[in-house]
C-alpha cells in the first residue's frame, strides 16, 4: 500500500524548545489517523509541517510519494505550492476570508489556483455546501455565521481543492460545546465516504475512537503509543498514555488548548 505521508526521523525546534525529536510516522493512503496528546506535545506541528506551513530542522518528510522537506532545505516557492495541492487543512480558528461570501470562500481557490472555470467551481461549491448542510447560507458573509457553521464552511473550502490528504487541526476546540456535534457529524460523513487520507489532531477521544483506523499518542515531540483505537484509547499499554487518558476522562483542562 502506498504512503500518503511519511515523517522520517524528523527533528524540529522553535528557538530553545524541541517540538519534535526523532519523530517517525507513516500514514498509508486512505487511512484515518487520529493524533492525540497533551498540549505542547507537537501534534499540531506535525500537521503544519505536512501542510508546508513550517519547515523542519533534521530528517525528511514525504507527501504523496514526493519529498516535501529534507533537513533545513526549503523547496523553491513554486515547488512548495505544487506540493501543497496534495494536502488541505482545516484550522482551529477557521481562518475563513471575512471579505468574501461563504460561496466565494469555497470557489475562489479552485478558480485562482486550480484554474477551474468560475461556473463549474461555483456549482461544486454549492454541492459541497449542501454536503455540510449549509446550502442556504451560500450568500452569507462569514461574520454572520455561528462558529460551527464557519467550521463547516472551512471544511468545504478545503475539500473544494480535492486534496488527497486532509489535515484537521483541533477543529472543534474553539467551538461552543453545543456546536461540536454538527462539525463532528460532517467529519464522520467524510470518513465514511472513504478515499481521502485524514489526519485529525483532536481532544475528542470518543470521536477519535469511533472513526479512526489508527490512533497515535504523542508526548514530548515523539510517538509514545501507536495502534488501533481499541488499544490506544481502549486499553493503552504505555503509562503516559494511561495518565493522559485518565486526565481527559476526569475532565481536566485539555480542551482549553
Amino acid at each position, binding site marked *: 500500500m502506498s504512503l500518503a505521508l511519511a515523517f522520517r526521523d524528523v527533528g524540529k525546534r522553535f528557538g530553545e524548545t524541541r517540538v519534535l525529536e526523532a519523530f517517525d510516522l507513516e500514514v498509508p493512503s486512505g487511512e484515518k489517523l487520529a493524533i492525540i496528546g497533551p498540549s505542547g506535545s507537537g501534534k499540531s506541528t506535525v500537521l503544519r509541517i505536512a*501542510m*508546508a*506551513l513550517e519547515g523542519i530542522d533534521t530528517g525528511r518528510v514525504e507527501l504523496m510519494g514526493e519529498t516535501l522537506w529534507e533537513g533545513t532545505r526549503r523547496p523553491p*516557492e513554486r515547488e512548495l*505550492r505544487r506540493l*501543497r*495541492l496534495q*494536502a*488541505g*487543512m482545516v*484550522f482551529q*480558528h*477557521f*481562518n*475563513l*476570508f*471575512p*471579505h468574501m461570501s461563504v460561496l466565494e470562500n469555497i470557489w*475562489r*481557490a479552485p478558480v*485562482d*489556483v*486550480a484554474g477551474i472555470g468560475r461556473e463549474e467551481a461555483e456549482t461544486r461549491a454549492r454541492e459541497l455546501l449542501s454536503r455540510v448542510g449549509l446550502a442556504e447560507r451560500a450568500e452569507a*458573509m*462569514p*461574520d454572520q*455565521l455561528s462558529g460551527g457553521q*464557519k467550521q463547516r464552511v472551512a471544511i468545504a*473550502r*478545503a475539500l473544494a*481543492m480535492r486534496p488527497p490528504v486532509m489535515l484537521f487541526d483541533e477543529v472543534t476546540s474553539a467551538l461552543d460545546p453545543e456546536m461540536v456535534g454538527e462539525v463532528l457529524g460532517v467529519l464522520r460523513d467524510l470518513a465514511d465516504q472513504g478515499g481521502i487520507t485524514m489526519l485529525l489532531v483532536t481532544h475528542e477521544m470518543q470521536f477519535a475512537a469511533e472513526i479512526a483506523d489508527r490512533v497515535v499518542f504523542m508526548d514530548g515531540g515523539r510517538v509514545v503509543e501507536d495502534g488501533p483505537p481499541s488499544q490506544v484509547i481502549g486499553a493503552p499499554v504505555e503509562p503516559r498514555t494511561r495518565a493522559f487518558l485518565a486526565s481527559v476522562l476526569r475532565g481536566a483542562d485539555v480542551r482549553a488548548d
Partner: protein
Amino acid sequence: MTFDWAYAAAILPALLEGLVITVQATALGMVVALTLGLAMAVVRQGGPRWLGWSVGQFIEFVRSTPLLIQLYFLFYVLPEIGVALSPLATGILALGVHYAAYCAEVYRAGINGVSRGQWEAAASLGFSPWQTWRRVVLPQALPPVIPALGNYLVAMFKDTPLLSAITVMEVLQVAKITGAESFRYLEPLTLVGVMFLALSLAAAQLIRGLERRFGRLGRAA
C-alpha cells in the same frame, strides 16, 4: 492699510486658476504616493530581506528630511542626469515620493492587522504570493486604512504650495507674483489662506465620514 475688497475680487479669478493647478498637483501626487507607497509596503513585507531593509531605510530617510530639499534635489539633479521634466511634473514626483514614504507606513499597519491565520489559510489552499496579496491580504488590509490615507491627502494638499519654490504657477506663486506687482500682499495671501482653510475643513469632514464607514472591519472569521 485695510483689506481692499474690490482688489480682492479683482484678483480672485487668477488665484482660482492657480488653485486648480494646486489641486491637480495634489491629486496626481497622491496617485504616485498611493501606488509607490503600496509597492514599498508590499516589498518591505514580502520581498527579499535585503530589499525590504533597503526600502525601510529609504522610507526613514525620506520621512526625516524636508520636502523642500527633496524638491530642489529633483529639480536640479534630474536635468543633470538627462531627465527633462517640467517643474510641475518634478513637483508632483517630489510630493508623490515624499508622501509614499508616509503611505507605506500606513499600509504596513493595515497589513499587520491581517492575522497570520489568513496567510496560512491562503497558503494551505495553494495561493501564490501574488494571489495571496491580491485576493486575501490587501482586500482586508486596505479598507481600514482609507481614513489615514485621507489625512495624508490633506497634508499633501497643504504642502503643495512648496511647488512655488520651483516656479510652478500654483496658487501661492500666483499670490506672490500678484502681491509683488501691486505691493499689496494682504489680499492675495489672505485669500489663499482662506481657500486652504475652507478646503481642509471640508476634507476633514469627508474623512470623518470615511472613518465612520471604514473604521472597523471584522477580521475574526
